[in-house]
């Protein structure tokens, strides 16, 4: 037995390059898995930390529903609820810092967080990097985050001027908060001030400052020791009668944060599973080749009395060596990849992740799946090796590979094992069955594509060979013959490439449709060329900002837009207030039910609502129905006057549309979030500077519609760039497989090559025929990969949307995938081709 194990070693050592390439392939597969797990754990850890710093020791949080915030009366009711030990109110506001001499002009907004300096420390600890905490008595002190201090050049003791509704307020920096500070989603640009100061920012010149704390964004509630959370929550529900509000618990915050990362985690897990798939194909192919190559020796061993089980053990030992070495290297590769991915995600600003966490679980999962998949992949070749009768092997003079060709059928088993592994490794938050279902769908699709290969091989090779045949007829012919020698091997080789390229194409099509749906509403819905966003509700009407904008010469239209929430049938309904008449003229908003003119006119009257068709279907309401929404003044009835194909996007889908009149009079809207500005034809150039000057003066952010869609697209591109990187790992694995296969083909064809050389074929021709073989393999992979990728893309993005699936075929990426497939395959062929060209004729033509 020991002797045979030594033989297993020697067989690996004899093909050092193949052994090494296979180990690298396994390590890439394991690496992507470890990276995905590391990033996943890193996201979890960051979310836990964020939740801890956000919620602190609070047991419940009451959040204002209306923009006006929670009133003093509500705060009073809340404090009186039995079981409530402490309430810590806070006001959140977005504004700008006034530019000051000696400091770089910073145009990005800041988040002002007003806190109750006496209650706050009992709820959460604000970690200070330097300086002192806010003093309860001092209204003019402020804390800034390290991030803000660094980007705006702020220091302890500096004065800050904060823009508000009235005159700017001046505060002095007394402390610097560590890192990004307590507010998520502010990009770390947070200023913490006493709650009264934050409240004063909302008071316009001439209004009297309120005497009580009000307009509160949220209140953190700490319960008395032993008070049951559920019971107190119920009591709060009975006690708060004055205003609508949302009651949440810390777990809710954590789970909503987790939900926001679910897509990327699921995609990464899927990519990891798919990369492992590609790696498994590589292993299966390598093991099959090892067995084919050694078949005569193994037959001799059998003839010399070796048991079948001993032969199996030889092959399994080889697999074990490959698996262990590959997984070990994979942990290292994965750790590097995880840091890279985390840095990338951080830079894309989409997700809060501080760093990856490579825990024992990731290491274990990496090694277990690497070794496990290698062993499973080796079972079939080992079995076939043992099943070959010694007599047959020794008798057959010619093509022994016939006896033990790679069997693609075994792939099904390998894939089933990986699939199960993947399901076990999917992020824990995936309670939604749609995600695993889609993953299984993708898996099955890829598997079917690979398994269809043998049937498609001949026509596909002919098709892929066409371009080569034009110039290199003979080489193409020989290459195609080599490809068809062992269909199983070709299938496995091309299969890995198909998978890698399919993922590249699929990601591009998903990115494409994400970009389309993220930006299409702008063109469909926004009635203007430029959007001015306000960070606080901006005044509308006579003397309001819309009037000021309209009065600029060259501005054709300035219409206010406000987004807010409606409470309907105890759910939160995202709503946007618009002026119907402003939409009437320019043809935007595509009505699928109800009369467009009548509906838009009705919005400017009272009691009308327009629903996006998708939302109407979900709520089960139609044109003519009445919806009763809850407000602080009781129920308000709104009649559905029309349905639109799409409207302004909300967090959970398209928003419902209501008129300005209702929104301000009954629904708690106090001002506009944004103004859409349209220029008169040909006047953009001269009017735009004036609009932008006014915007600056009014603390509005001006962004052309194209820039908005560009920014949305850029953020998506960065995110998908990372995913592409992971998908490329599968392509690289495929390239390693191509090197292995072509080397093996060359070895097997040594006699044929020798004969051809004796018949007058030149080295260059031999070299070219191997390159063409690679090119055909690459083109086949590119073609099948593209088709599969488009299908996977459709599956992942849930149909192609209204425009149909063809609209999401990412043609440039398809072209890229085919070129990449061919180029990479030919690059991989460089060395085998060189070897083939150098085959010495006497050696090749010598008998056995």
């Amino acid at each position, binding site marked *: 037995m020991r002797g045979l194990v030594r033989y297993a070693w020697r067989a690996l050592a004899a093909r050092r390059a193949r052994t090494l390439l296979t180990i690298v392939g396994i390590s890439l597969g394991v690496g992507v898995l470890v990276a995905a797990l590391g990033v996943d754990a890193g996201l979890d850890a960051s979310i836990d930390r964020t939740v801890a710093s956000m919620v602190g020791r609070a047991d419940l949080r009451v959040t204002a529903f209306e923009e006006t915030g929670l009133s003093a009366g509500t705060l009073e009711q809340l404090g009186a609820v039995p079981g409530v030990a402490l309430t810590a109110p806070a006001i959140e506001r977005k504004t700008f810092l006034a530019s000051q001499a000696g400091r770089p002009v910073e145009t990005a907004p800041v988040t002002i967080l007003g806190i109750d300096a006496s209650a706050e420390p009992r709820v959460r600890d604000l970690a200070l990097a330097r300086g002192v905490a806010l003093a309860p008595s001092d209204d003019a002190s402020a804390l800034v985050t390290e991030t803000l201090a660094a980007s705006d050049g702020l220091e302890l003791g500096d004065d800050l001027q904060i823009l508000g509704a009235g005159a700017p307020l001046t505060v002095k920096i007394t402390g610097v908060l560590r890192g990004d500070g307590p507010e998520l989603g502010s990009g770390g640009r947070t200023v913490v001030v006493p709650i009264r100061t934050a409240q004063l920012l909302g008071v316009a010149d001439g209004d009297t400052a309120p005497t009580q704390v009000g307009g509160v964004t949220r209140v953190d509630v700490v319960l008395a020791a032993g008070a049951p959370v559920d019971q107190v929550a119920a009591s709060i529900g009975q006690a708060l009668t004055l205003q609508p509000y949302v009651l949440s618990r810390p777990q809710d915050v954590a789970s909503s944060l987790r939900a926001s990362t679910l897509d990327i985690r699921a995609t990464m897990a899927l990519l990891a599973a798919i990369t492992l798939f590609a790696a498994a194909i590589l292993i299966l192919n390598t093991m099959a080749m090892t067995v084919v190559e050694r078949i005569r020796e193994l037959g001799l061993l059998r003839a010399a009395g070796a048991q079948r089980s001993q032969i199996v053990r030889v092959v399994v030992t080889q697999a074990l060596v490959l698996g262990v070495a590959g997984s070990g290297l994979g942990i290292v590769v994965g750790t590097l990849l995880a840091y890279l991915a985390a840095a990338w995600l951080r830079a894309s600003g989409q997700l809060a992740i501080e760093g990856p966490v490579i825990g024992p679980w990731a290491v274990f999962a990496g090694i277990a799946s690497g070794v496990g998949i290698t062993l499973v992949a080796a079972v079939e070749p080992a079995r076939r090796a043992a099943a070959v009768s010694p007599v047959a092997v020794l008798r057959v003079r010619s093509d022994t590979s016939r006896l033990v060709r790679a069997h693609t059928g075994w792939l099904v088993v390998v894939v089933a094992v990986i699939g199960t592994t993947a399901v076990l490794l999917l992020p824990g938050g995936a309670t939604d069955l749609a995600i695993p279902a889609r993953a299984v769908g993708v898996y099955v699709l890829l598997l079917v594509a690979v398994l269809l290969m043998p049937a498609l091989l001949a026509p596909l090779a002919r098709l892929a060979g066409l371009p080569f045949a034009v110039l290199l007829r003979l080489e193409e012919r020989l290459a195609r013959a080599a490809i*068809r020698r062992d269909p199983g091997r070709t299938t496995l080789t091309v299969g890995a490439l198909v998978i890698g390229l399919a993922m590249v194409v699929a990601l591009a099509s998903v990115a494409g449709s994400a970009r389309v749906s993220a930006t299409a509403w702008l063109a469909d819905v926004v009635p203007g060329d430029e959007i001015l966003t306000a960070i606080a509700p901006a005044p509308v009407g006579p003397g309001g900002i819309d009037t000021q904008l309209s009065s600029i010469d060259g501005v054709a239209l300035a219409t206010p837009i406000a987004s807010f929430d409606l409470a309907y049938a105890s759910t939160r309904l995202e709503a946007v207030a618009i002026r119907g008449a402003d939409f009437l003229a320019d043809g935007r908003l595509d009505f699928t039910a109800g009369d467009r003119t009548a509906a838009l006119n009705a919005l400017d009257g009272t009691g009308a609502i327009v629903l996006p068709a998708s939302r109407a279907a979900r709520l089960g309401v139609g044109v003519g129905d009445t919806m009763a929404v809850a407000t602080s003044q009781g129920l308000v009835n709104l009649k559905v006057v029309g349905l639109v194909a799409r409207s302004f996007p909300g967090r959970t889908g398209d928003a419902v549309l209501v008129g300005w009149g209702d929104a301000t009079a009954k629904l708690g809207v106090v001002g506009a979030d944004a103004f859409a500005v349209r220029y008169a034809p040909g006047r953009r150039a001269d009017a735009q500077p004036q609009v932008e000057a006014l915007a600056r003066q009014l603390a509005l952010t001006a962004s052309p519609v194209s820039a908005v869609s560009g920014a949305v697209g850029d953020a998506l591109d960065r995110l998908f760039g990372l995913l592409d990187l992971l998908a490329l790992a599968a392509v690289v694995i495929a390239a390693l497989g191509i090197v292995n296969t072509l080397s093996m083909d060359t070895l097997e064809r040594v006699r044929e090559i020798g*004969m051809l050389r*004796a018949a007058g074929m030149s080295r260059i021709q031999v070299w070219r025929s191997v390159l063409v073989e690679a090119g055909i393999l690459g083109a086949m992979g590119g073609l099948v990969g593209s088709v599969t990728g488009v299908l996977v893309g459709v599956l992942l993005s849930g149909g192609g949307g209204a425009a149909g699936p063809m609209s999401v075929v990412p043609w440039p990426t398809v072209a890229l995938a085919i070129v990449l497939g061919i180029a990479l395959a030919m690059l991989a062929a460089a060395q085998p081709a060189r070897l083939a060209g150098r085959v010495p004729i006497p050696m090749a*033509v010598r*008998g056995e």
Partner: protein
Amino acid sequence: MTFQPTIADEANAPRRTVLPILEARSLTKQYRMPGEIVEAVRGVSLSVMPGEFVALMGPSGSGKSTLLQLLGGLDQPSSGEVLLEGEPIGRLSDSDATRLRRERTGFVFQSFNLVPLMNVVENVGLPFTIAGQDPRSHELAARIREAIALVDLTGKERHRPDQLSAGEQQRVAVARAIVTRPALLFADEPTGNLDFRTGLDILGALWRTCMERGQTIVLVTHDAKAAAYADRVFVVGDGQIQDEIVLGRRSDHAAAPLIARLALLGL
């Protein structure tokens, strides 16, 4: 029928005024192995006249294949030289050697002579394809047809190698080797894998090319019955030419005279 070793009569003897088509001068070939040097060919000189059918015969390991590879320019000698039509081919560049193989020599090996996925016509036309010519052109197609007819395979043009018997495969190899009308045809144990009767078909095909086209042939074999097809037999032993037996051109191919002569030599 006489058992006397036959010396060719004057009429059939190669004429001395014609220059040899192939000439070897003091050829040696050494293989360096770890710890020893194997001398496969040790000072061989011989010449072959145009249109001659010669055989290299000898026991296994005597150096026949090595000698053939040197004569055919597949390998380079350690010393000595090979002249093909008066030109030395020992020091040709790779591309010149390739052109030589493509245009002036043809080879038939013991096995693996054909490209599996090409049919008979394509395999026979391979040298033209390699040279970048179109084997379907009028002239070349005719030559291919002619070669196929010569080896008696007309009617099997569309068969692929795996649809042919081993003997038929070897005949396709012969047709391919002669289709370019090479100056020299080299065959290394072309019947080695075949039974006696099938082997005769191959030898018959070689013989016909020699008779009908004046093809010069160098055949390697360890079988006296095969060598009996030749005009002249070089007996190879231990890397050297031990004897030269002139049989003359005979259409009966009887092996008896050769065997008797070999017996006299104690072989």
